[in-house]
């Protein structure tokens, strides 16, 4: 029995080995930040390479569960790895100013980012609910600390709120797992799939309650309304250099977990959970859009917009299996947009500060044309304007939801999309129409944010104009 396959675990081994090595060298030698960068870079590159190898070898094959059904090596997990490690790399580059400003604590920061990346990839690769819970905790615990890493008054509050609501969500998620276990008698997703496919539950109450709690628990993690209360405060309080990574990582890991749990073991109950997902999706889109309009801090605005985006992605999940491609396209391109947008925020208000009032963007078009163009592009993409990935992504989720019969939800989401353009365009107007306040000098932009904005902008435009390579790739990125 080929139970052991180290390719399934390769990316985790690469990044966690880099994290441990970094911590040990830091204790023994106290090297410069450049050494941390090299170790982390090699670890992430190796993990990305192993994910690509997993993609080449693992997609489309059938018997691909390893380590006693704990991990899956399929297109879904390999594509998840590619997305996670790409965004970890870009996120670290964008936030490198934060690493150096932390001085000796920077090593621990980098190590925690690497451990969080391992956790996020495990969330996409888990084929067992025990494994999924632990993966979720690896990522979440690292995230709580990263949110508070600067230890100032804004960051400690972000960390506490994130932690308390995250721990609460974990408890709810666990209760859901316990109930699904009660209904199916196994924690292996493959076992649950075959059990639920073959058996008709006479009294499905316990399973449905379990599904509801799973959706609530993971809904907290991806900040879907009405479970989004933590997002604005955490986004605003966390240091800007890491907010993009936190925001994108929580979405990618959370939606990978949600997509796999809902479409693999619980596929047979699609008709029961899809309406609930549609309601949560519409609530998120409406609440996120309405509250984003009222914000005057760009990080709070992006937080509420991320609530709306969580709603758009959930719309695609109402189609079950058929929606997974749209979920992946949206979540992977949105993750890049978020990382790019927060790279600009880090450049404008400093990587180690929390708040970033919209007023400080007035006249950014003159102070730093490149950053303004980058942020403008991300706003356009998040608004869903053609020739960007945001448009292709929205098209995909709307089509999936219409095919699944949720026209009312799509119509509501369309109205919200139009309303959402208001606050995305307001940022652009601010940057180009308004004069910079007082005597604002030209903005000095470090190489880190510049590279991050450049890469994410290029990806947003190229994949927006020619999305077919990614769309073709995603046909193989389905769960087992």
């Amino acid at each position, binding site marked *: 029995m080929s139970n052991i396959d180290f390719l399934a*675990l390769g990316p*985790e081994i690469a990044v*966690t080995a880099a*994290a*441990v090595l970094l*911590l040990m060298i830091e204790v023994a030698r106290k090297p410069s930040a450049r050494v941390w960068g090299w170790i982390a870079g090699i670890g992430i590159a190796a993990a990305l390479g192993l994910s690509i190898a997993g993609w080449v070898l693992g997609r489309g094959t059938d018997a691909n569960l390893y*380590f*006693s059904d*704990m*991990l899956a090596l399929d297109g879904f997990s390999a594509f998840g790895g590619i997305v996670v490690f790409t965004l970890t790399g870009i996120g670290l580059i964008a936030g490198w100013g934060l690493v150096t400003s932390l*001085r*000796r*604590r920077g090593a*621990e*920061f980098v*190590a*925690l980012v690497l*451990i*969080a990346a*391992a*956790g996020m990839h*495990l969330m996409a690769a888990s084929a*067992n609910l*025990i*494994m999924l819970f*632990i*993966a979720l*905790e*690896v990522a979440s*615990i*690292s995230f*709580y*600390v990263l949110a*508070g*890493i600067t*230890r100032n008054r804004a960051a400690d509050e972000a*960390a506490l709120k994130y932690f308390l609501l995250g721990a609460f969500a974990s408890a709810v998620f666990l209760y859901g797992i316990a*109930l699904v276990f*009660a*209904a199916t008698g196994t924690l292996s997703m493959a076992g649950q799939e075959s059990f639920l496919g073959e058996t008709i*539950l006479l*009294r*499905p*109450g*316990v*399973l*449905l*309650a379990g599904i509801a709690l799973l959706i609530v628990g993971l809904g907290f993690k991806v900040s879907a309304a009405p479970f989004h209360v933590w997002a604005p405060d955490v986004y605003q309080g966390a240091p800007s250099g890491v907010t993009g990574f936190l925001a994108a990582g929580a979405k990618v890991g959370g939606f990978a977990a949600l997509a796999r749990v809902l479409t693999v073991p619980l596929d047979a109950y699609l008709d029961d959970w899809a309406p609930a997902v549609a309601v949560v999706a519409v609530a998120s889109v409406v609440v996120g859009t309405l509250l984003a309009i009222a914000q005057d801090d760009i990080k709070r605005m992006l937080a509420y917009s991320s609530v709306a985006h969580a709603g758009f992605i959930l719309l695609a999940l109402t189609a079950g299996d058929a929606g997974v491609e749209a979920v992946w396209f949206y979540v992977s391109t949105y993750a890049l947009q978020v990382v790019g947008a927060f790279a600009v925020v880090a450049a404008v208000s400093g990587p180690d500060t929390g708040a970033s009032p919209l007023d400080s963007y007035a006249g950014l078009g003159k102070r730093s044309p490149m950053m303004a163009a980058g942020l403008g592009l991300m706003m356009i993409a998040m608004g869903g304007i053609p020739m960007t990935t945001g448009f292709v992504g929205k098209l995909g989720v709307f089509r999936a939801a219409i095919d699944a019969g949720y026209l009312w939800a799509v119509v509501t989401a369309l109205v919200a999309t139009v309303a959402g353009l208001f606050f995305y365009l307001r940022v652009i107007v601010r940057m180009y129409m308004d004069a910079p306040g007082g005597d604002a000098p030209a903005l000095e932009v470090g190489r880190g944010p510049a590279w991050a904005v450049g890469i994410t902008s290029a990806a947003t435009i190229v994949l927006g104009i020619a999305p077919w390579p990614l769309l073709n790739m995603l046909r193989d990125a389905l769960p087992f």
Partner: protein
Amino acid sequence: MSFTDWITDARNVVFLVIALVMVGAAVVVVATRNVVHAALTLVVALAGSAALFVMLGAEFVAWTVVLVYIGAVVVLFLFGIMITRAPIGRDSVRLDHVRRWPAALIAASVFGVMAWSTTAAFGGEEISDGVLKAENIGDLLFSRYVIPFEAVSFVLLAALVGGIVLARKDPDR
């Protein structure tokens, strides 16, 4: 199964006593005005759960609860309470929100929905009483569950590094 049948089983009488003590302790944890009392009554609730685990044949889990939760976690809580000098003694204003009734309503409806929807799925199904030895759990942890076991070590590593990063005072300041 009628209630009189149920209650004539001696184990169920023991269960009922433990359950009532646990629920009472849990109510004290969420309602007391004294932080130290809350942490100490949590010990009672957790000890009750350990007793239930023994009844269910999960001896290793029971001892883990006693050692890890009661022995370490609650002590950690007491340390946390003392370090932050949270109000010790009666101080009702600072510990609770005023929104007590809406919260009670939400909790009651959570209980209603959960208890109703889950108990409806089971009739009077009996729980089998086999005892799983620590030896078997050890075997399983290092064979079938070895990957989650390794992954948990990264939860602990992240918590360790994070705890130090957040709570330590910087030497270079």
